């Protein structure tokens, strides 16, 4: 989407006002409305879909596999594998690789190993498959919210063989029908656009186009966590971020985090 010089100048000016005037009339801490859908992919262990008001849509599915802990420890396997597909981007493009590595590291660091633990020798490994069907704005928040919903609604097969197999090995055996809900805390990622002295939550496509810079801030277990990074929200037009804006943005996330999580937890 390209704005004409007049359009972008107008938009930039209105966003510089105090308080900023956003094109869709939102406050700086206001999200676009989302529509959620959970557990519709039967053959996965968990799935979720979020549709944004501008038509952006993301589907996340969770699959599990039983692996030996030794394989994880030795680095032969990851505990969590993330795969992202966005139409219009090649798998090996910088955009996709950046998304994957951000998500991979945040989930690997913050999803607790105990929650995936099976026995003294085996653990579950999760595959998070992300499919962004349509995106008009930077999709990271969308993906992280959808993944949050999918992981929170993931059901893993119930182990019926013994948990202690360190000395006398046992092959994990599962109940033929019953599942256990995965009980974990999942991090989410907020996207904030910076325009001059202002910062706005959840920028839409036009706001991104004119923004000076972008920030991602992660939230986990009622705390702000890393990664906190700047991201390029448009081509060309980039300015440095003033340090106090970062502090302000973090404060914004702190004030919002709990209510966002609460809202997501209510999704069905």
């Amino acid at each position, binding site marked *: 989407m390209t704005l004409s010089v007049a359009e972008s100048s107008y938009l930039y000016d209105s966003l510089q006002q105090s308080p900023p005037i956003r094109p869709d009339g939102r406050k700086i801490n206001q999200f676009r409305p989302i529509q959620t859908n959970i557990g519709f992919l039967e053959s996965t262990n968990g799935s979720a879909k979020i549709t944004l008001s501008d038509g952006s849509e993301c589907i996340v599915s969770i699959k599990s596999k039983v692996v030996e802990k030794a394989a994880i420890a030795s680095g032969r396997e990851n505990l969590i594998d993330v795969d992202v597909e966005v139409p219009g981007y090649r798998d090996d493009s910088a955009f996709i690789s950046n998304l994957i590595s951000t998500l991979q590291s945040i989930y690997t660091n913050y999803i607790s190993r105990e929650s995936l633990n099976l026995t003294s020798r085996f653990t579950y490994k999760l595959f998070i498959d992300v499919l962004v069907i349509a995106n008009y704005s930077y999709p990271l928040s969308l993906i992280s919210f959808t993944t949050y919903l999918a992981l929170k609604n993931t059901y893993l097969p119930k182990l019926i063989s013994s948990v202690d197999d360190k000395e006398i*090995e*046992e092959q994990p055996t599962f109940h033929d029908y019953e599942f256990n809900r995965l009980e974990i805390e999942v991090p989410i990622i907020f996207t904030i656009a910076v325009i001059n002295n202002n910062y706005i939550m959840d920028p839409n496509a036009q706001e991104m186009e004119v923004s000076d810079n972008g920030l991602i801030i992660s939230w986990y277990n009622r705390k702000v966590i890393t990664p906190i990074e700047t991201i390029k929200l448009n081509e060309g037009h980039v300015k440095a971020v003033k340090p106090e804006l970062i502090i302000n943005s973090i404060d914004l996330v702190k004030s919002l985090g709990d209510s966002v999580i609460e809202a997501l937890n209510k999704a069905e």
Partner: protein
Amino acid sequence: MAIPVVSRKRLNEGLSVTSKVFIRSRNGNASKIVREHYLRNDIPCLSKACTKCQTIVSPNAQGELPKFVLSATPLKLKEVGPHYVVVDTNIILQAIDLLENEQVFFDVIIPQTVLDEVRNKSFPIYTRLRTLVSDDTKRFIVFHNEFSEDTYVKRSENESINDRNDTAIRKVAEWFQSHLPSISTVLITNDKDNKKKAIASGFKNTKTLVEYIDLYPNSAELKDLIPEETNFKSNTSEKFYSDYYSTARLMAGLKNGTLYQGSMNINSYNFLEGEITLATLPKPLLVLGSENLNRSFNGDSVIVEILPKSQWKKPSSTIIDDENLNSNVDPETTALDSINDKERKLLAQEAIQTQSNSSDIQPTGRVVGIVKRSWRLYVGQILSNSIPKTNSNSAKSCFVKLMDRSLPRIRIKTRRAQDLAGSKIVVAIDSWPTTSKFPEGHFVRNLGESESVKAETEALLLEHDVEYRPFSKAVLECLPAEGHDWKVPEDLNDPEVLKKDPKLPKRKDFRDKLICSIDPPGCVDIDDALHAKKLPNGNYEVGVHIADVTHFVKAGTPLDAEGASRGTSVYLVDKRIDMLPILLGTDLCSLKPYVERFAFSVIWELDQNADIVNVEFNKSIIKSREAFSYERAQIRIDDVTQQDDLTKGMRILLQLSKKLKQKRLDAGALNLSSPEVKVHMDSETSDPGEVEIKKLLETNSLVEEFMLLANISVARRIFQEFPQTAMLRRHNAPPTTNFEKLNDMLRVKKNMSISIESSKTLADSLDRCIDPQDEYFNTLIRIMSTRCMMAAEYFSSGSYGYPEFRHYGLAVDIYTHFTSPIRRYCDVVAHRQLAAAIAYEPLDLSHRDKDKMERVCKNINKRHRNAQFAGRASIEYYVGQVMKNNESEETGYVIRVFSNGIVILVPKFGVESLIKVEELTSDLSSVEFKEDEYSLEFKDQNGNMRNVGVFEKVQVEVKSQLDSSVGKRKAVLVLK
């Protein structure tokens, strides 16, 4: 658990879809599986009394409508009146014999749920059930409840699959009751919980098997046939055996190499000692004592672990059978659970070392799991001392001693123990819980009085799993409609004939060749015929003509399936169990003299040296000039006055066969012996008269040599044409360990040895084993060597690499069976493959599919082995009968020495028997077992010290004695 519930979705009128979700645990992984499941509304009840279902049925893919089977006026019984029966899975698994009984169970509804459960639990029972359903007489139907809109049951949360299936079965019963209110539906289940739930939900007609049988007027005699799980509920909770490990543990143990899987092989001299051949150990692992055998049967596929080193033992040198039963149980079996997998792995390495060092102490193992039971129907006899003395009307337990000595006795409950005493009976095994010392089973059928020919013959056929029932209608319908009047067409160019058999012009006309057959006297199924003549160039034309069975037995027909499953004809002393119906075997295929027959011919051009110059394969028409017995052929050849062309041809054959044999022996073919005996029957009373050892004439080997040559030629050709699926036969070289003991005995006793580097060295070293004082000694060594050899086996060429095709005994690189298609199925396949190779007809797909070929090979290998055992058992029985009338003193040879007995082979009768030490001497303290010398020293009845060693020639008194407790006649030998 909150998997989103996809409810039913109607697709169109009469079809809706739902989904099934389950977890598949495989190799330690858990995958969630979702299946779409379609439900329809046109599944009929198949009752003739129903008016609605006739209108809803739709034809199947063949355009056939389902047949309504259930009677409109079913059997009336007291209490329930006219009724249909719905059976639960446990009834079928426990009492399939009762379902097959002709007096009870008519109009039976098998829910599909039950059928599936049965198939998962026991495939043999499943096939029996299928036969019952396809056979109309007892009116069994399968109701596909899982696909019916009305009876499909969704599994609810936290419900086990068994509970869900029980619900589905109850639903079927309820549906039938409401669908056909005029006929009552009875649900039969032995599951208490299921019964309780059915009654709770208002379905009153729920009965246990016993309650149902009680409704029959003749229930008293039927009750014996009911296996009851609750029968043997012992009040003591004493455990005789340890529990098997959980599947999870077994799988992990197999994977990490601390547990091993193999086939249990019980020592035939000691039923408390088993061996398991494991790929990881150089020698079989010993399993000693009933506690370590842990309820495994001979032939079971089991999982074992290696016991701690302190429990490693020598293999026993004692003979133990059921009589001295409880003595050998090792009381100090420490629990193994305290050892971890690391220690187990070390133990395994130590075991390998110990075995390679050939020390006395051998690693031993313990059975910790059973993968697959080899249980089948067994024949045995009630132990007379276990029959309860009091004559009450309630069922009492007693023991059945099985014919197979390597199996434990079976406990059954019966009311008729006294009637059944002294009879051969068939029993089935139900279970072997840890709290029971012996496996528990139930009575199935009475074969008749022990030692009667009928009972004994049937018993041995059953014991060796030989199918002896008459051929079914479907099979007989595949035979030519002309029956015995079938003829080779007179005019080969008649268009009518050609229309029926368009391949006829491809047959070669060999009716002008002077062909004759040479077989044992009285042979009616003549597979093969021969001819030979001198060619103008000085070479010889030799033809082997084999009955063209595949002209009548086409692939894919029921006749072919029956042949494939029987695998071989079985020859008993007085009876032949045919592989193919008698019309084919003894008439249409049999190459009888003076009539024209279709044949498959192999024609060689051989030079003076009997080397092959050329070989040709043809389907042909022949006319045998004469059918000789070996003896008559020999006489004719030897008679110099006979100068006709036929006799001259036979002389050529004889002369060439000697050259062939010499070449074969030079290449290292083995000449092994087995004590083959023949029982002469009194032709009038068919009582066995006398026993003789089979004599071999030159003409025997004449036929044999050319059959070998034909088999080899055919093998090469079909392998060339079908490198992946050619039907071949191979014979492995024996592993050195098999000969260890024999070689050691030879070294100690005779200072001789057998070399088994190659078949050539083996043949040569066997030739050197001669005792100048005893000409039988060489044969004895050959007999004992035969027992150390591997069995030859059928295989499909894709299963092994070319070097492994070798036939060790015949010393050829490739071999098959081609020459007896009437009595062996391998030959039938070889015929088809050869016919395809010469472009006579295309090869059926099943013979070009590697998997299918492997399955065929596996079956015919098993059948072949069973047929051999059955034949030997038959001879053994008759030899026993002969000896009953003739007590005599004979020469015997000691072939094994144990610490408490010796085994003696009597060549004249081909019997071997054990003499226990108690029968050798009255002074047991004088007995000394010299293990390293393979001898036993004892004070004989006259008070003189006597030393008996292996290979020793002894005089024995032979008589036959009936062991009345087991009804088995044994040869009893008394050392002179």
